[in-house]
């Protein structure tokens, strides 16, 4: 037992060193890490303040005020458990069966038990750190609103740890069983598809129920019916119910419910023991099965017509030069990676909800000009959000194959412009469609619709150029997961700069738009502040010119110095 624990501790050494050793973020770039830690703390404080405000408002609601926070906590715990379960299962495929270091570990005389538990702990940390980070401020807000003593925070940590361990164990069991039967990669991809589709449906459902009406007492009945759908406090055997009971006992300074605490702790321990038994028995055979499953995706099983189409496409692309070749390559890589194309489903849902929002807002009798102005700000945020996921990683996605482009007789300007074009066209199409549709829904006159489309196109051009340029200036060729590329300092810098650009550009557009609106209503009259108009237009033009050139120039310079 002691020997197993020693091996387990040793197996965690690379992760511990990566987190705390001299080569970790703290060791290499302490200042940068400190800045990010501070940003994280600020974010957590923001969540706490917002949650405390919201819970306070809920408690003020007459008759049912005391009931809402409890219901919300049950809902929160249920969502947390569901998210953790999905995240742990997807993560378990990678940590248990697809990780590169497994070949070394499996071939060494390490017993399966400690290896499995080391991977289970890794799965637990990978899948839960974000939930833990964003969840704790919400529970602290509960403590603040209910004026709880320090004991509540101790129980909160214990309950959260148990709730995190539970899905990690379950996720490892599911991943082990599925990999024993099917290919690890395919099972993970299939699971991700189901999760994304499920998430989109849930998202659309919640949006359609209009949760903003929660604080509107007149429409409270509908929302309560919605909350009633999640009947967790009544489901006696749900761990989230036990967790909610313990937390509320702590919050209200009541004696702790021993039965619930024992049930939560013993069920977690039992599930981990079961995971250990199943996992250590299946780890080696399932790992072997995972190796066999690696070559399943074979395009030679495509229909001959598709293969012919592929060759025809290659031929056309080659004749049309670098841009077309890059486009065809990027499209193929994108469409063959579920991690990538699944984002399109989310994007479609986002677009649908975006337009839906304006239908609701229009029904609330806002003036078209207010909605029209708000639309631009929201559109800018949406474009920036999409760009951070799709445009910023454009250069980094070349990955370790970057040497192929770099060794070819291709100028970096050419390469960057091709990348810009590949991403700009679909993004412009989306932006124009959203702008035109939302204007139609709001009931904006034709002239202002055209103006709106022009403004959104300028914003999209700027944000897209910034994304490609900064992505080239801060490339992350060694990050294997495309979703992780924007999570570095470059991605955060891009978000901040793109938001800054969107807001200043739109701010500069306010006065010219106001003048045009005045003219459209009252005809040509002398301008009250002609200097303002000239300055606004100048700011917009200069900003657009600068953002179209500077990031690309910087990206090219930095990329030239980057050695693959």
């Amino acid at each position, binding site marked *: 037992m002691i020997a197993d624990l020693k091996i387990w501790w040793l197996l965690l050494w690379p992760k511990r060193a990566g987190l705390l050793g001299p080569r970790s973020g703290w060791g290499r770039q302490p200042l940068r890490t400190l800045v990010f830690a501070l940003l994280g703390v600020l974010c957590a404080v923001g969540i706490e303040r917002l949650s405390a405000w919201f819970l306070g408002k809920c408690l003020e609601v007459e008759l049912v005020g005391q009931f809402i926070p409890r219901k919300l906590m049950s809902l929160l715990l249920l969502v947390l458990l569901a998210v953790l379960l999905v995240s742990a299962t997807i993560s378990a495929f990678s940590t248990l069966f697809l990780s590169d270091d497994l070949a070394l570990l499996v071939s060494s005389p390490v017993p399966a038990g400690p290896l499995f538990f080391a991977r289970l702990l890794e799965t637990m940390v990978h899948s839960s750190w974000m939930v833990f980070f964003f969840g704790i401020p919400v529970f602290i807000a509960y403590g603040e609103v209910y004026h709880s003593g320090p004991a509540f925070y101790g129980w909160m940590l214990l309950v959260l740890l148990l709730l995190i361990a539970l899905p990690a164990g379950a996720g490892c069991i599911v991943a082990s069983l599925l990999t024993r039967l099917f290919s690890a990669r395919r099972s993970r991809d299939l699971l991700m598809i189901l999760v994304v589709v499920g998430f989109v449906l849930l998202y659309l459902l919640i949006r359609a129920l209009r949760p903003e009406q929660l604080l509107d007492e007149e429409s409270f009945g509908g929302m309560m019916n919605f909350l009633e759908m999640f009947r967790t406090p009544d489901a006696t055997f749900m761990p989230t119910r036990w967790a909610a009971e313990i937390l509320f006992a702590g919050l209200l300074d009541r004696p702790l419910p021993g039965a619930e605490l024992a049930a939560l702790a013993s069920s977690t321990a039992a599930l981990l023991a079961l995971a250990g038994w199943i996992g250590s028995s299946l780890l080696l055979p399932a790992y072997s099965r995972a190796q066999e499953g*690696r*070559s399943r*995706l*074979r*395009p*030679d099983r*495509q229909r001959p017509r598709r*293969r012919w189409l*592929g*060759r025809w496409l*290659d*031929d056309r*692309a*080659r*004749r049309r*030069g*670098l841009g*077309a*070749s*890059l486009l*065809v*390559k990027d499209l*193929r*890589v994108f469409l*063959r*990676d579920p991690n990538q194309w699944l984002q399109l489903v989310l994007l479609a849902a986002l677009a649908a909800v975006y337009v839906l929002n304006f239908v609701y807002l229009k029904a609330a009798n806002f003036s078209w000009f207010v909605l029209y102005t708000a639309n631009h700000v929201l559109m800018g945020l949406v474009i920036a959000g999409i760009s951070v996921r799709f445009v910023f990683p454009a250069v980094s996605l070349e*990955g*370790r*194959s970057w*040497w*192929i*482009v*770099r*060794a*070819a*007789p*291709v*100028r970096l300007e050419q390469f960057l412009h091709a990348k810009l074009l590949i991403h700009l066209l679909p993004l412009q199409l989306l932006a124009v469609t959203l702008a035109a549709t939302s204007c139609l829904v709001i009931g904006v006159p034709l002239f202002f619709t055209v103006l709106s489309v022009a403004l959104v196109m300028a914003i999209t051009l700027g944000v897209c150029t910034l994304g490609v340029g900064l992505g080239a200036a801060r490339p992350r060729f060694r990050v294997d997961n495309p979703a992780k590329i924007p999570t570095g300092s470059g991605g955060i810098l891009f978000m901040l700069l793109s938001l800054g650009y969107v807001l200043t550009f739109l701010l500069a557009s306010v006065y010219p738009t106001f003048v045009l609106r005045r003219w459209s209503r009252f005809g040509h009259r002398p301008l009250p502040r002609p200097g303002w108009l000239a300055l606004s237009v100048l700011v917009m033009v200069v900003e657009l010119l600068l953002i179209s050139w500077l990031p690309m120039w910087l990206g090219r310079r930095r990329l*030239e*110095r980057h*050695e*693959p």
Partner: protein
Amino acid sequence: MIRIEKLHKRYGRLVAVDHIDLEVSAGEVFGFLGPNGAGKTTTMKIMVGLARPTSGRVLVAGHDVHRQPVAAKALIGYIPDRPFIYEKLTGREFLAFVAGLYGQEKDAAGEAHRLLELFQLAERSEELVETYSHGMRQRLVMAAAMLHRPRLLVVDEPMVGLDPRGAELVKSLFRSFAREQGGTVFLSTHTLEVAEQVCDRVAIINHGRLVARGSMAELRRLAGSGEAGGLQEMFLRLTEERPPAASLPPEST
């Protein structure tokens, strides 16, 4: 074909390449030998434009690789030691993409097919690269490097991951590329037998400096190991990496 002048590369305080001068003629297979970390890969990366020199320059057919990169790179085919390729493309798609990068419009598909046949990849050319073994990836990268009919092949450790048949194919390919097509091959290798069988001349680099150059026979003489001396002995003498006699295991009787 290649002219390296006072090439120097420094990473912080580490000197990777220390003012080396070298010339390689057209039609020559040139071997670049040296122990691990001697500066071989860095030199080759500078030659193909993947790294920038701290000082000095590399000319390929008269084109400065860093001042006229497009003209120089159009003449070079590069085969790195670790064949990282886009995993989600098939072998044939990868060659089509490379043809696009090199602006190969005429008969690129026919040439790609010929190279896939030559490197025994045609049967699996419609499968994703992620399913390929290391050796297959290495052969695919070689096919890609030859697709645009380069005049210079820069090859870093060509035999890693290749089976004996693949290794023999590659050796004969390099020889015929130099002797029949007048191309130049600049290759680094740890396999001294490969250098002896394929290379017309070799240079040995150690701690970033060229310590010897010439034909294998000339290097043997320089090392004082005689015509019959082993390649390994010659290499160890020239790089002064011979382990102390006291640490060698006793000979078995």
